[in-house]
Structures are given as structure tokens and as C-alpha cells.
């Protein structure tokens, strides 16, 4: 709302005090804001310096190269107690990315299934999906994390009474023990076959699309593509003499030897994040599909499409344009929410860095600022990636 200034030659405004001049006034307001912020910043800095001096807390980022002296119960890279805080930081960051990455994929799948389920013509399915959304959305996430961790996973039987799935996967109160798979000699052929299968499937898809556009004949590709991607490596796998070393877990004494243990902290966090976020994604998907005009559904049905085809070819592509921006928000929320890991001891960035490291070094300012910066950067990167995708699926006006 810019006010007209007096220089349009109509009539000079009557002389007024300088403070009533809108331009001077806005400059004064802004100067006042800048000065206030600067003064606050200065006070904070002075106080912080005094307080840190009084408490004998070091400052600076030197602590990154000090020995951490604590262990973590899950690490994607080798980590010993003698490693540095810097390495612990990386371990935590990777664990955050691990649980959010898997969580995003699972929550998307579950959320789409439930969102589409809520619109199902099947009355019971729609009701079950609706009940899921209402129940899960109205319970705090931390409540759900603690529920899965304390009430479900830690009340499972102990290692000796593990629930066993075909003697390969064992479920007990110390997590899931699954076979550890290591590629052996000859596995490279299987990987090559997989790559070849993917390429062939893409080529098949392109060929089928070209054929459909030219002649209108549509060739079902899905099963053939699946056979290429899954079947080809499988055949090679058998032909190469099963080139994989499976280290099966077995009980010895009071615990398992062999295999890989998936810690319950990870499982509880993943379950809660997936289930919680899926309920929000489901609502976004439902709103997106409902926003596609009804005429689109009717026209699709009139063309003789089946419901699955209608959803896949007509509704979802249009709904995605509405779904993607809020979906990005949910992905960001999931990543940020993974910091609740600290409540159950999953060693994510927050627990390792703002939890243990802060406790040991006491350098609150540096550590909390860095933690916040990392989450901000993650948010920024996710936004940029999703905006790229969004500009791809955007409606192009011709």
C-alpha cells in the first residue's frame, strides 16, 4: 500500500513535520528495528562471553577433533569410543538420514494406500482407512514412539524364547535378528544382470509407448518388465551357484551369534514415524484426488477404463500436482520429527550431538547452532528437490 508522494505535479502537499513524511517515517521504523536487533545481539554476545568465562566452558569448534569416549548402538560407518566428536557427528547424521529415508518411502506407500482406501467404493475399506487416520492423527507422535518402544517391542520375549520366522529371522525384546548377507565371488554377474534387466525393461516400456502412440495397440508391459528386472538376476543368481554368503543367526548361550541385529530403537522410531506421517499423507492424497473434477472420473469411466486404470492414468497424474507441495512439507516434518529419537536412545544426529556431545562438552551455543543449521539445510535441500519435481509435474499451459 504505497501512499502517493507529492511529486506528481498536481498540487504540492502542505508543509508537515518531517516525522509525518511517510518515507522518513518508514526509514525511522526500519532503523529502530535494526538498532534493536543489533543491540539484542550485542547484549547476547556480551552475556554469553561473560557466562562462558564464569563457567569455564571452552568455545570454538576445537572439540570436533577431541576423543568422544562414548559408544553408539547403531552406526553405518565404523565407530569406536576412541574416535572423535567429528566422526560421532557424521554417525548421527547418517543415522538421521537412514531412518528418515526409509521412513519417507514407507510412509508414502502406506499414506497413498490409505488415502486411496478412504475413497474406495468399498464401504468397509473406506471406514477402516478413515478410522486409521482419525486415531493416529490425534495421538502425539512421542506418545506413539514410546508406545512402540516400551509397550510393544520391550515386552517381546527374551532372546532364548525368540519368535522365529522359518528359523532365519528372530524377533525378541532386543530387536529383530536377520541373516547377514554378504556378496561372494561371482555376485558381480548378478549385479550386471540386474542392470541389464532394468535397461531392457526401460527399452520395452519405450517401445510399447511408441507402438501405442503409432497404432493405438497397447501391449501390457508391467509383467514383462517385472520378469526382466527380477527374473533375469534371479536366473543368473542360480546359474552362478548362489554367490552369496548368508550368515544365519543362531542362539548360543543367552544371545545370538551371527546375523545382523536391527535394534528396537530403530524399529520403534521407524514404525511410529511411518504410521504417524502416513495418516497425514493419506489426508493429502484424499484431498488431492477429490480436487480433480468429477467430470474427469466420469469421462474416464465412459471411455471404458477400469477403476485401477482410471486411478493410474487419469486421477493420480492430475492429483499429484495438488499433492506434491503439502507432501514435501510432510517429508520435512518426518525428517524433523526423527529428532524425537533422543527420547528412546536411537543414535540420530540430535541424540548423539545435541544429547551426548552437549552433555560431555557443555558447549551449548556451538552445538545447538550446528544442530539447527543441519536441520535447516536438510529442509532446504528437500524443498529444492521437491520443487524441481513439482515444476516437472506442473500443468503446462499451452
Amino acid at each position, binding site marked *: 500500500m504505497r501512499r502517493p508522494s507529492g511529486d506528481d505535479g498536481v498540487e504540492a502537499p502542505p508543509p508537515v513535520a518531517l516525522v509525518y513524511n511517510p518515507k522518513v517515517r518508514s526509514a525511522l521504523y526500519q532503523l529502530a*528495528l535494526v538498532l534493536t536487533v543489533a543491540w539484542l545481539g550485542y547484549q547476547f554476545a556480551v552475556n554469553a562471553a561473560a557466562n562462558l568465562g564464569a563457567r569455564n566452558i571452552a568455545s570454538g569448534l576445537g572439540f570436533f577433533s577431541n576423543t568422544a569416549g562414548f559408544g553408539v548402538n547403531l552406526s553405518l560407518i565404523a565407530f569406536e569410543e576412541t574416535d572423535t566428536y567429528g566422526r560421532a557427528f557424521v554417525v548421527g547424521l547418517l543415522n538421521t538420514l537412514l531412518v528418515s529415508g526409509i521412513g519417507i518411502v514407507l510412509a508414502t506407500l502406506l499414506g497413498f494406500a490409505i488415502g486411496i482406501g478412504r475413497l474406495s467404493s468399498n464401504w468397509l475399506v473406506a471406514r477402516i482407512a478413515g478410522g486409521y487416520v482419525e486415531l493416529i492423527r*490425534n495421538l*502425539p507422535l512421542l506418545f506413539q514412539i514410546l508406545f512402540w518402544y516400551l509397550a510393544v517391542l520391550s515386552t517381546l520375549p527374551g532372546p532364548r524364547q525368540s519368535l522365529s520366522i522359518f528359523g532365519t529371522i528372530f524377533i525378541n525384546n532386543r530387536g529383530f535378528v536377520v541373516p547377514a548377507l554378504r556378496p561372494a565371488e561371482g555376485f558381480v554377474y548378478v549385479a550386471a544382470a540386474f542392470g541389464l534387466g532394468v535397461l531392457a525393461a526401460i527399452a520395452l516400456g519405450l517401445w510399447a509407448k511408441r507402438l501405442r502412440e503409432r497404432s493405438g495397440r497397447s501391449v501390457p508391459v508391467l509383467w514383462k518388465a517385472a520378469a526382466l528386472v527380477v527374473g533375469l538376476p534371479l536366473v543368473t543368481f542360480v546359474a552362478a551357484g548362489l554367490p552369496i554368503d548368508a550368515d544365519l543367526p543362531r542362539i548360543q548361550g543367552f544371545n545370538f551369534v551371527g546375523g545382523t541385529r536391527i535394534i528396537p530403537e530403530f524399529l520403534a522410531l521407524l514404525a511410529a514415524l511411518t504410521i504417524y506421517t502416513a495418516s497425514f499423507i493419506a489426508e493429502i492424497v484424499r484431498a488431492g484426488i477429490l480436487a480433480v473434477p468429477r467430470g474427469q472420473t466420469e469421462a474416464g469411466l465412459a471411455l471404458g477404463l477400469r477403476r485401477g486404470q482410471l486411478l493410474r492414468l487419469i486421477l493420480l497424474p492430475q492429483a499429484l500436482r495438488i499433492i506434491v507441495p503439502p507432501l514435501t512439507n510432510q517429508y520435512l516434518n518426518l525428517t524433523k520429527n526423527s529428532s524425537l529419537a533422543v527420547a528412546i536412545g536411537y543414535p540420530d544426529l540430535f541424540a548423539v550431538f*545435541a544429547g551426548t556431545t552437549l552433555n560431555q562438552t557443555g558447549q551449548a551455543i556451538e552445538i*545447538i547452532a550446528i544442530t539447527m543449521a543441519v536441520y535447516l539445510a536438510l529442509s532446504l535441500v528437500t524443498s529444492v528437490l521437491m520443487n524441481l519435481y513439482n515444476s516437472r509435474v506442473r500443468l503446462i499451459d499451452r
Partner: protein
Amino acid sequence: MTTTAPSGFVRDEMIAPAEPPHVRASMLGWIGERLFNSFGNATLTVLGIVGLAALAWPTLRFLLLDAVWRGTERTDCLAETVGHDVGACWPFIWAKFDQLMYGFYPASERWRPNLVYGFGALLLAPLLVPRVPHKTLNAVLFFGVFPLVAGVLLVGGVFGLPEVETRLWGGLLVTLVISFTGIVGSLPLGILLALGRRSDLPVVRSASVVFIEFWRGVPLITVLFFATYMLPLFLPGNWKIDGLLRVLIGVILFSAAYLAEVVRAGLQAIPRGQFEGAMALGLGYWRMMGLIILPQALRLVIPGLVNSFIALFKDTTLVLIVAIFDLLGQLRASFSDPNWATPATLFTGFAFAGIIYFVVSFAMSRYAMFTEQRLRAR
């Protein structure tokens, strides 16, 4: 149409017309149509019934049928004493009830939180019903006067009331105090930020944008850590801030950024003519906003505000990580009581707290939907 060139896309002979759709009005017809109209749907229906039964029956048995209702100690909840499988151990909740509601607030002073609840309910109820008049006065009392009265009553130390330190507070009391103070404290700041974000002054605008995007980009738990561990370092060494107050500051900063975005949506929905009309009347910026724009904009965003309140109510659980005992924190603390260690304790506790959280959030979300429909109907 013999003149058309042959094409793969176009059919050249007619297909037989489809059967007219069946319309069956009976109950069986409805079941057939909505549940068993195809093989796939029938499978889904059967799976759904089996899944529901597998979930609902044990839940019902746990909560009601097999539950232990009366008792005074853990042995009353053991299968050996009861003689059958035990479900929920409700005596555990009765024993911990006061803690879950008030924390360690002294028993002789609990009339004070109760009185605050009473005042709150008396002021809130007429505010929620659209037909009751005097909304402005009501809102001023609820958002302006009530927090002060509640603060004096709860903290004490004046008017002959003994002081109750906030570290004694706990349970649902802390949950409600944090969510209510969070929303009341952050609303003015959120409105200012929303106005700032739409301001003509470039410095004010960019400062607001940075503030909003910063707090929205970081997880609440980092904000709570910031408030608990970093904020005291920024203040003069002789200032002691109470632990609960620190958390409240963090919650207010965090929630103000979210409220600013809600309010901004309302400001954007006000037609340009309203601004121009106000300016033509000669109103300055603050009077234009205060008398013309904000009253309309805030009314538009009531559903959004209620939804933010639900989110805040659920988010208060995070304070247990910085050692403030809200309902969930108090619940977790009560699990470690060896006097009540039974197989059913954990599930009972979660069921109780879950019901409280669910009922409050669900009721508020229904209220948000109701206000939304009212706005749409106008």
C-alpha cells in the same frame, strides 16, 4: 463415416450397449453393491472384517472384559490372584491418578489448579458457541485476564497463597499450561510477524521472513534445547529463569512462526477493496489493521488457529525430553515404580493417556471442522 482415414485409435464397428446398472434398494442389495460388487472388493471386505475382529476383540477384552477394576496393589492385577488372564490394570491408574493430573503439586493446594480449570471452562464455553453475544469482552477476559489470574493462582506467593515452585508441577496440568500459554503468548507475536511479512518496509519484511522460516525449519526439540541450555547463557549471569518458563519461551517462539503463516493466509484472503476503503477513510496503518483488516482476517482463520492448537497440544509431549514432567512424562516416570510392575501396567498406562490425548485432539478437530463449515455457509 467412410471418408475417415483408417486409424488405430478409432473403432470402426459399434460395440453392444452395456446392461443398465442394477439399483437395489434392499439391505442385501446395499451389501452386495458396497462390499461384494467384485471379486477384489469381496476379498478386501473379508480381509477387513478379519483384521477388524483381530484388533477390536482383544482391545475390548483388554480394556473392559478382562480388566481389573478394583484393588490397591500390584498383586491385585496378577493372573494368579484374579484367576484368569488379566487385561487392563485400572488400579494402577487410580493409584497414580493424582500424579498424572497434577504432578507433585501439594495435595492441600490442588484446589488452585481446579479453580483455574473451572474459570477456564466458564470463559471458554461461551467463546466456543457462536450464538452467545459479547464475543469481544469474552475474548479479552479469556486471552487477557484469565492467564494473569491463572498465573497468580498457580504460582502463588502473593495474597497469602503459599508459593508452589514450577518443578513440582506435572501431569495434565503442565500439558494444559504449556499448550494454553503457548497459544496465548504466540498469537500476538504471530500476528505481528504476519503483518511484518506483508509489510512494505523491506527491512521489516525480510526480518519477519527470516524469523518465520528459521523457526519453521528446525525441529521443536532443538528449540526446547535452545531455550533450556542456550538461552540462559545469553542472559546476564544473575538472571535465573525458571525451567518451565524457559520451555514456554521456546514454545512461544516456535508456535508464533507457525501462527504467523496461519494469520498470513487470513490477511491474504481479505479483498484489496477493504484496504483501499480503510485508507480512503483516512485511517492510518495500525487503525486500518486493528479496526478493519484483522477482525475479518482472524475470523477467517479460526479453523487454522484451532488446528495449530491441536498440533501444539500434541507437541507439548516433547517437554519430557528436557525433564519437564507433562502427562506423558509423568506416565513414563510412573512405569518405573516397582510397586506396580505387572505385565499389564505399560498397556494400561498408554491406554489411559491415549484416551485423554485422543479425546481432546479429536474434539478440537471436530470443532475446527464445525467452524470451517460455518465459514463456508456464509
